[in-house]
């Protein structure tokens, strides 16, 4: 298939919400063949695993690239120079550059986002007045999340929707005035942003003793979690605070789980209780696997999440994350990153070595040649 054919087929697939397992498998194999033929590093990766389109009959056997792979491999089927947009991953290459996810067109990404957002977040609403607690797409052109939120505002935001965060950070006075206005308007409102932005806002609200009661039917969408931030919150506490500070029911506080290395996002159906199960639309499938063997892990047991996202057609559709998860009836539960463990013995582990060796290397002016985690 050509790129144009792939794009058209995907847009049709996304538009028809009746595609089942067989259709998913058929399209997954076609896209695998396309990626295998047009992406040499991925082809090498698959050959090393002795898997080619000829030998592959089931999408589950399509080799999943570790997200780490984006750091070292140029994973793109099209000429990297001729893309509409490049999103940068959080992992960095050994030259200090960030991994890149290239999109020859954003039409598929956007169709995927819009369809799933409508289904999982908007429910009965066509449009909602929105407030975004994240920088704009112009401020962060390589952030997939900035694009995602801009798209949400453009496609689903009603009049008065706006960003509540500028280059200078959050203007508290402006934010609180906005929230008061919304409170008085009685119209349902949607507040969207990075999980940690909400923490900042709630910290400030706590400091000045403020809370609001957003109109009935209002919703909150947070994403990103707290990894690498100055503090981590227990999920239960986080949603309890969100609910009490903003007066939004916990079941209307939706968490979105997405990553730069995908073109489709996962959602839960509220956080009345935590952790909540996540699921995605029918052009993405997730499996819980053993990270070392790739073998699927039985339902209820911990493993690492592997996603197969048909919409991520230009890079690779099948990725192996570093997120631990468990399969449940209505999707999967995200357990956070499967952090490398501290070595149980007295032998040094890579992480500890890098941590100490970096300090040493500064003294001895000697580089480290070893894999590192993002």
């Amino acid at each position, binding site marked *: 298939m050509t790129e144009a054919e792939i794009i058209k087929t995907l847009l049709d697939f996304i538009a028809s919400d009746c595609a089942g397992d067989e259709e998913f498998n058929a399209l997954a194999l076609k896209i695998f063949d396309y990626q295998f033929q047009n992406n040499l590093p991925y082809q090498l990766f698959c050959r090393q695993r002795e898997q080619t389109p000829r030998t592959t009959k089931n999408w589950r056997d399509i080799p999943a690239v570790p997200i*780490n792979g984006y750091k070292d491999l140029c994973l793109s089927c099209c000429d990297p120079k001729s893309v509409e947009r490049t999103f940068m991953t959080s992992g960095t290459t050994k030259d200090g550059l960030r991994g890149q996810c290239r999109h020859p067109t954003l039409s598929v990404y956007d169709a995927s986002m819009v369809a799933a957002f409508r289904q999982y977040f908007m429910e009965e609403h066509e449009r909602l007045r929105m407030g975004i607690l994240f920088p704009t797409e112009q401020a962060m052109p390589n952030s997939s999340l900035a694009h995602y939120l801009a798209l949400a505002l453009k496609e689903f935001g009603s009049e008065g929707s706006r960003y509540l965060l500028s280059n200078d950070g959050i203007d508290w006075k402006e934010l609180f005035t906005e929230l008061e206005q919304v409170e008085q308007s009685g119209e349902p409102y949607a507040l969207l942003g990075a999980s940690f932005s909400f923490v900042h806002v709630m910290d400030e609200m706590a400091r000045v003793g403020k809370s609001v009661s957003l109109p009935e039917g209002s919703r909150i969408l947070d994403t990103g979690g707290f990894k690498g931030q100055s503090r981590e919150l227990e999920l239960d506490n986080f949603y309890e605070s969100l609910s009490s500070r903003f007066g939004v029911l916990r079941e209307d506080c939706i968490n979105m789980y997405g990553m730069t290395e995908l073109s489709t996002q996962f959602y839960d159906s509220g956080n009345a209780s935590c952790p909540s199960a996540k699921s995605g639309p029918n052009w993405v499938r997730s499996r819980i696997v053993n990270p070392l063997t790739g073998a699927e892990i039985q339902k209820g047991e911990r493993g690492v999440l592997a996603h197969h996202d048909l919409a991520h057609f230009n890079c690779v559709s099948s990725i192996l994350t570093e997120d631990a998860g468990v399969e449940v009836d209505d999707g999967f539960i995200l357990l956070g990153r499967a952090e490398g463990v501290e070595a149980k*013995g*007295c032998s040094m582990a890579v992480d500890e070595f890098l941590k100490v*060796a970096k300090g040493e290397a500064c003294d001895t002016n000697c580089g480290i040649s070893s894999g590192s985690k993002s």
Partner: protein
Amino acid sequence: MILTAGYLPGLSPDEVEWQTLTFNRGGEQTEVSVPLLTDDQIKELSSDIKKASRHYLKGLPVSEILRTIDSAICQFLDRSNPYRQQAEKYLPRITGYDSEMVRLGLTSYLKTFRQSELRRFLSEDFFNPKILDEFQPLPKGGYGRAYGPDLLAHIWAGNVPGLPLWSLISGLLVKAGNIGKVSSFEPLMASWFARLIAEIDPRLGECIAVTWWKGGDTECQQALLNQADLVVAYGNNDTLQQIRDYTPITTRCLTYTHKVSFGMVSKSALDPIKAWNVAHQAAYDIVRYDQQGCYSPHVFFIEENGAVSPKQFAQYVASELDNFQKKFPRRTLTIEEAQDVALWKQTEEVKTFSDDCSAVMGDTDGTWCVSFSETPENLSPSGLNRTAKVISVQQLDDVPALISPYKAFLQTVGIAASPEELHRLACLLGVVGVTRISALEHMTVPEAGWHHDGRFNLLDLITMTEVERSAEISAEAFSNYVD
């Protein structure tokens, strides 16, 4: 059945809070109850142990202590002994290591603590071990006697069965009272050993206690550190930094950090007949306790221009690891451990895309993995759990430059080379910080009396009391026979 860890002389089990550690390995669940003492109990225990050490142990001749330890070790070596049988049954269940590997490992490890070996151990550090019993003349003049601390605190770590015995036996040899904190990964061996000692010599048993707290419980830790005269601690840099920070300034704190070890093979060992055996020995060092020891190899530097090429040697090691998997299967990894191995393996695989000469070998179940590099690379840790890097070097003399940046982490080097090469390399390696050189296949079995991380196991524990020559001479003036 619930096993009980810990050994607390003078404390009745009813007075103590117990916690249960649960181990799930290979579908079998084993529960171990561990004691969790209050601050006051740690204080009381410390005071009792100090008293017992002062009143009994300090007066016990070293030869007696040797006999008691030897007798305990003898029982542990006897496969019909109930303690040994428990060790063979439960250590594989809680650590996950293959039971045959544990059995063989226990024997080879324990026999280094027989009486004859302990004597060697003593004479490594003391020219005249009687200095631990009474004042002995010193070469510089005067007399000296070595005293162990009244209370030596051990903070153990890790899941390699029996490792705590090293420092515990060292403590006994210098007549120290001992309180040891076992690791949650292997809380049993030290506890059993203490009980065995107490069965043989109950009063010596009163000089040892074995307890537990959850790693990071700074309150329990502080209580013990406040009482100790000397601290020996094992773990990663962060843990040890914290222990050192909490140790009172007047108390010495000896820390053993995590280390990286590696192997070297000279072209003289790479003829077609010898190379297979060398690869077998290298693989054995990788397999033993799944590279969890500080002496376990992560990397092998292989010299070029031998009859067997470095790449072929890597394949030999791979093949031997595959064989070992049948004989001593690797323990089941947790998801986090599997993730570490996977990340290392992926990083190595990605390198092969841009370098035709490198290769990654492994089995489909991920139970072992060998990554080969044709070009010299600096030392770096492997993904552990039977993963190793084989690096081709033009000559072994190039290796010191590849390891010298990491001086602080180096420990053992396993070498297969001719006598001339061995001695030449020893000089080069010693300079960059290597503290132990062994034969391959022996990397994980240090000999009795070895100097752990290059330090003196016993000398580091003692303080000397010296009677200077001046005191002797001046005393003469006050004797009843003075003219």
